[in-house]
């Protein structure tokens, strides 16, 4: 990514695991495809043309989803700087968050059942502000746990209250 959401010069983003895209595509294929088939079949009972159109539209939407999952994967990045953590994500709705280590209240490592089966976790940072919403998805535990420990350590070192 370039432009206003670029990483600072000479500091490339740390990227997340490509398994994040595999996981999302698996969910898309596992849920979206059967749903499309069922709905298209139901419409097809009423009128064959309607069924065909609904099926085609569904497939196009699925293909767009497949493609955008790839774009979204490439948009994820994080950067540990000396005083803060910088996180960016989002291809369509882009965002860039800077969370100072001194403001971190706690660092969570979470993994839902689907994430777990793909060997992924999410690292989530909380500050006193509810709107911070800084999280890094699609990390492998071998990356996430040292990251969490480093963040916690720096949080203690920089702690500046509220």
């Amino acid at each position, binding site marked *: 990514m370039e*432009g*206003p*959401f670029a990483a*600072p010069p000479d500091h490339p983003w740390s990227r997340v695991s490509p398994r994040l895209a595999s996981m999302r595509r698996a969910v898309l294929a596992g849920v979206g495809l059967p749903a499309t088939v069922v709905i298209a079949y139901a419409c097809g009972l009423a009128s064959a043309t309607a069924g065909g159109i609904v099926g085609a539209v569904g497939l196009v939407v699925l293909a767009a989803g497949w493609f955008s999952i790839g774009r979204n994967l490439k948009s994820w990045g994080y950067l540990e700087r000396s*005083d*803060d953590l910088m996180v960016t994500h989002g291809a*369509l*709705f*882009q*965002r*860039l*968050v*800077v*969370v*100072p280590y*001194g*403001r971190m*209240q706690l660092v969570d490592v979470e993994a839902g059942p689907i994430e777990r089966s793909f060997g992924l976790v999410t690292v989530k940072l*909380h*500050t*006193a*502000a*509810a*709107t*911070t919403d*800084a999280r890094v998805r699609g990390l492998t535990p071998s990356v996430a746990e040292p990251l969490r420990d480093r963040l916690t350590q720096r949080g203690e070192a920089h*702690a*500046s*209250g*509220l």
Partner: protein
Amino acid sequence: MASEGGPPSLGAGGSGGWEPARTGSGPDEETFRLHPLTPLALGGRILGLLVVFTLFSLAGQRADQGGGPNVVALTLYGGLAVLVVVRGLITVAVTRYHLFGGELRIDSGLLAKQSKRVRLDRVQSVDVLQPLSARIFGLAEVKVTTAGTERSAVHLRFLALPVARQLRADLLGRAGGGGEGAPEAPERPVAAVPHGQLVKAVLLEMVSWRLGLVLVGPVLTVVGRRNGHGATTGVGVVIIVWFVFLVVIDVWRRISTLWDFTLTDSPDGLRIRHGLLSTSRQTVPPGRIQAVLIHQPVGWRLFGWAQIRMNVAGYAGGTDARSTMLLPVADREYALALVGWLLGGIDLSTIPLDRPPRRAAARAPLWWRAQLVGSDEHVLVSRHGLLSRTIDIVPHERTQSTRLTAGPWQRVLGLATVHLDSTRGPVKIRAANRDAAAARLLFDLQVDRARRARLGRWSPSAPRPG
């Protein structure tokens, strides 16, 4: 914060200073219990209702003449009242609070014991609240808000009012490192809201586009009358009555909670006092205000009035709306001066504001002109709103995190929005629809300013939490 200059004077200042109650230097650990009258105050509403029901059924029985007393109903009411009181008595019996060094501990629970600890250096504010049911018995609640995320407030319901005041002074004294048994700090009046102005302000605050909805009822009534359509007329009348009811309730609630609003300054922090039937006395220690806004509803602009609200960590945004009020109504100039003083001597009028680039009109058709943002070395200021107007102010040292966002339409136009995250509360600050490159510059600048402000903060007058 309170050390230099002193608050801008408004003339009026109704500080009903209470006598400094002082307890002798007791043992290191103090243990207290709730007041024995607590059950009556805790169950106040239910007990009141039960009394009313009982009176009704007695009166109804007299009117009927014949037939014995309605034993079933009376027994039911009596039983409920006993239950409520017994439940309150159990609460009193099992709740103890200990003040020890820099910690307040509350033990409660009959079967499932629970113990809450509050680190006093984390205290964000201490409030003495008197709901009507407690006020009748001379009781008060002490609410201690700490800097947690949710449900972090500790309520001590109920104590005798003098005890509650003394506890507050103690807590604030310890929070500021003053030690136990501190006398109540002396107060200086800052501002008081005259009753007439409050009533006018509350009424004028209702002036907005929603006022158009008021016409729905009368229009339906008239239309129904004209066409001889009874149902329409009926619906119209019902809407009118319902609307009047809602408005009266709302006006009454606002006026009664904000009645006698006084703001005073003391070494403990800002004291905010208000309430007609139920009263509330908040104390926000120095340096606990995270962000401030100055709001001018459209109906106030002609009079040049404004209100000030604040973000304090631990005060929830929605349900606790009253406690985020810093000054319900004052002259705009005075509000600006007061905010400048609160934030450590800043002159808000010297901060130049600029608007988004013209192409932002494609995303925010009319109001792009009103999305103004400016900053200096201490604060970031944003002003928005075409009719009602709001100025949000966040000091750099209070910024929690910084965000830059852009949606698809914004990216087509080459725009982006910078958000500064503050604790939960009414103040939400952002620089909307800036030129994308300028937004990134502002973003980087704010990150850097916040970092420097964090390093060089804490004047001696502001005790350091955590």
